[in-house]
């Protein structure tokens, strides 16, 4: 147990006791399996470990990696990168990443590159506490969630360490450890719309001609469009997240007609573009992300992330381990993954409007007021602050769309890559250039 004393001497905080125990246990396991021959060296060297975590800005956040580095005693370097860029990195420059925070549709696309290694479920202590939404694809009442698009569980498991295929049912090997997720919908300017909005069909309502926008990420934009077209009764899709060629053609043709009729003001590509379109009143109803709505609100401009009767478009992010991780670095990575689920991170991202894959630890780290507002759909008893202490909603306000159950329980489809992706991109380019 000399390793434990060595670790302890390097420790700085009281809350490390549990971690130390687990570290010791991990060492034991490592020794037992013969992976690491010299635990003493490991204990001393863990301080020198550096892990590069790469992912989108809403997942890889410097405040979180700093806190983790302080708690764990080794260094985690955050690096932000769009999912599209991250996919390219995972495929072409895997050595520049240690931990990749991939959206599940990105994971679906790049896992078969073979550059990721599965996460051993048995090494994640809180895997059993993880929400069934992510772990099993089951809804709150135990029923199956919508399988349209990339439902996380569809790409979450694999059969063996060397397999690059996804397993149909849960196994002991996960392609990623789910971390954050949310339910996306349309953002509206209630002051400029001036009436109740309750269906996706409003996106294509001639009343808002020239005042709507779509996200110009083809795979996501086309799904928002599909939600609206289906709500209007124009089309009925087998799977909005995996359309047939015929469905793609019909959707794009409808979009081209709408565009020629002047329905759209813009197609935005970045977060700030969506914020500015809304804040400047160029657009009154559009595809939007939760923090963008917050950003508009923080300028004292009314903006609502409107829950709609057809349901939400869901998405999630998981942490994946790169194939080249082994020995000490791999053990450190597992320690970090375990730390991630202990609640501090979950509470941090809850204040940005995202949910944690282990909700109970996240909730335990929130104040009662925050818990009521973010997770339980209750009115805020005092001002709600974002993770950086800025006030983003006043006392008495409710979260748009209601509680965790109301929002995540009503997912209609998930962000996805289609089998006909290449054809879809080609047609999307046609739509944009029409």
């Amino acid at each position, binding site marked *: 147990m000399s390793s434990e004393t060595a670790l302890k001497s390097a420790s700085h905080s009281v809350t490390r006791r549990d971690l130390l125990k687990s570290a010791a246990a991990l060492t034991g396991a490592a020794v037992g399996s013969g992976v690491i021959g010299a635990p003493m060296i490991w204990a001393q060297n863990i301080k020198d470990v550096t892990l590069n975590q790469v992912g989108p800005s809403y997942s890889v956040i410097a405040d979180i990696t700093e806190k983790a580095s302080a708690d764990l005693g080794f260094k985690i370097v955050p690096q932000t990168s769009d999912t599209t860029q991250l996919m*390219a990195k995972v495929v072409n420059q895997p050595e520049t990443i240690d931990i990749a925070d991939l959206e599940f549709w990105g994971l679906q696309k790049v896992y078969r590159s073979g550059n990721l290694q599965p996460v051993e479920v048995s090494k994640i202590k809180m895997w059993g506490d993880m929400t069934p939404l992510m772990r099993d694809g089951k809804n709150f009442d135990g029923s199956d969630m919508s399988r349209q698009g990339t439902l996380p569980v569809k790409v979450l498991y694999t059969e063996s360490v060397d397999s690059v295929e996804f397993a149909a049912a849960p196994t002991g090997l996960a392609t990623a450890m789910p971390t954050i997720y949310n339910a996306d919908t349309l953002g509206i300017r209630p002051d400029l719309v001036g009436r109740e909005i309750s269906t996706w069909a409003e996106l294509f309502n001639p009343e808002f001609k*020239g005042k709507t*926008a779509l996200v110009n990420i083809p795979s996501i934009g086309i799904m928002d469009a599909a939600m609206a077209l289906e709500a209007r009764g124009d089309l009925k899709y087998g799977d909005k997240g995996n359309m047939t060629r015929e469905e793609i053609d019909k959707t794009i043709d409808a979009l081209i007609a709408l565009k020629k009729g002047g329905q*759209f003001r813009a197609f935005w590509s970045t977060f700030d573009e969506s914020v500015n379109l809304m804040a*400047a009143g160029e657009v009154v109803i559009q595809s939007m992300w939760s923090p963008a709505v917050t950003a508009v609100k923080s300028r004292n401009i009314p903006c609502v992330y409107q829950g709609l009767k057809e349901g939400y478009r869901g998405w999630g992010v998981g942490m994946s381990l790169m194939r080249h991780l082994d020995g000490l670095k791999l053990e450190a990575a597992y320690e970090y993954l375990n730390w991630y689920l202990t609640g501090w991170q979950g509470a941090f991202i809850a204040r940005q409007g995202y949910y944690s894959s282990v909700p109970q630890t996240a909730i335990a780290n929130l104040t009662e007021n925050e818990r009521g507002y973010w997770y339980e759909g209750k009115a805020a008893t005092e001002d709600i602050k974002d993770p950086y202490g800025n006030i983003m909603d006043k006392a008495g306000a409710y979260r748009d769309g209601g509680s965790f159950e109301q929002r995540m329980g009503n997912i209609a489809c998930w962000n996805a890559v289609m089998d006909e992706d290449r054809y879809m*991109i080609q047609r999307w*380019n046609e739509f*944009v*250039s029409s």
Partner: protein
Amino acid sequence: MSGRSSPSGRPLAPYLQVAPLAFIMLTMVGIPLVTVVMLSFWEFDGIAVYPAFTWANYAEVLSSPVTLTLFLATLKYAFLTLLATTLIGFTCSYFLVFHVRNLKVQIGLFLLCTIPFWTSNVIRMVSWIPFLGREGLFNSMLIKAGLIEQPLDILLYSDFAVVLTYIHLFTLFMIVPIFNSMAKINPNLIEAARDAGATPAQILWNVIIPLSKTGIALGSIFVVTLVMGDFFVVRVMSGGQSASVVSAMKNNIDQLYYPVASAMAVLLVTVVLLMVTAILRVVDIRAELAR
């Protein structure tokens, strides 16, 4: 120096002189270009690329009606921008060279033209957005002046906004070469033309324009290549409502479809090369510059 030569008897100095540029061109232009051409013929399965020869990428690009639309859209931007920048560039240079007599004032005014270029491209582009927007400065001005009742939507997120930004960004690339070739025109020629009874219009058409065409050609090459290769201005200023060849390429790159993007890139390079060749056919820049 010319006396020194390599053992074979051929002079070494010219090769040494050209070596640094050749090295830079080879590593920074040659190798990447060859890579792109190579990639455009490789097979891929959605994420990985395999070194096997295939025409499939070109077949996809060339058989798609989108490609033509994209090239036409981009060419339209290039043409409109070229027209406007040539007019503005020529007029500005003409004024600077023939109307401003004092050399110091001339240089001062010329520097004035470059002032907007002291900030970044992005800032110059983005600054148009609050100006042209629906609730922007220009629209509120027009409404307050009683000229219009509803804000003009066409000002922002439109082809108009894209071309306007291009003109703003690229006019200097036209002014500089035209100014340069006009400044070289011998004033005696103009006096001679006037003495021979030419009207000002005739002087402009028969003397000044022919002698400035090197500058116009050089400027055109800059403007055309800059517009053809752009995707950022199109994306931001059209609000994503228009696409250029490169923005479509970016959509492909984002989804890791490198070979298709490469095939498109090769096509674009070919088109731009043809355009530059055409410009060079009209004006023999080398001969004119050596003048």
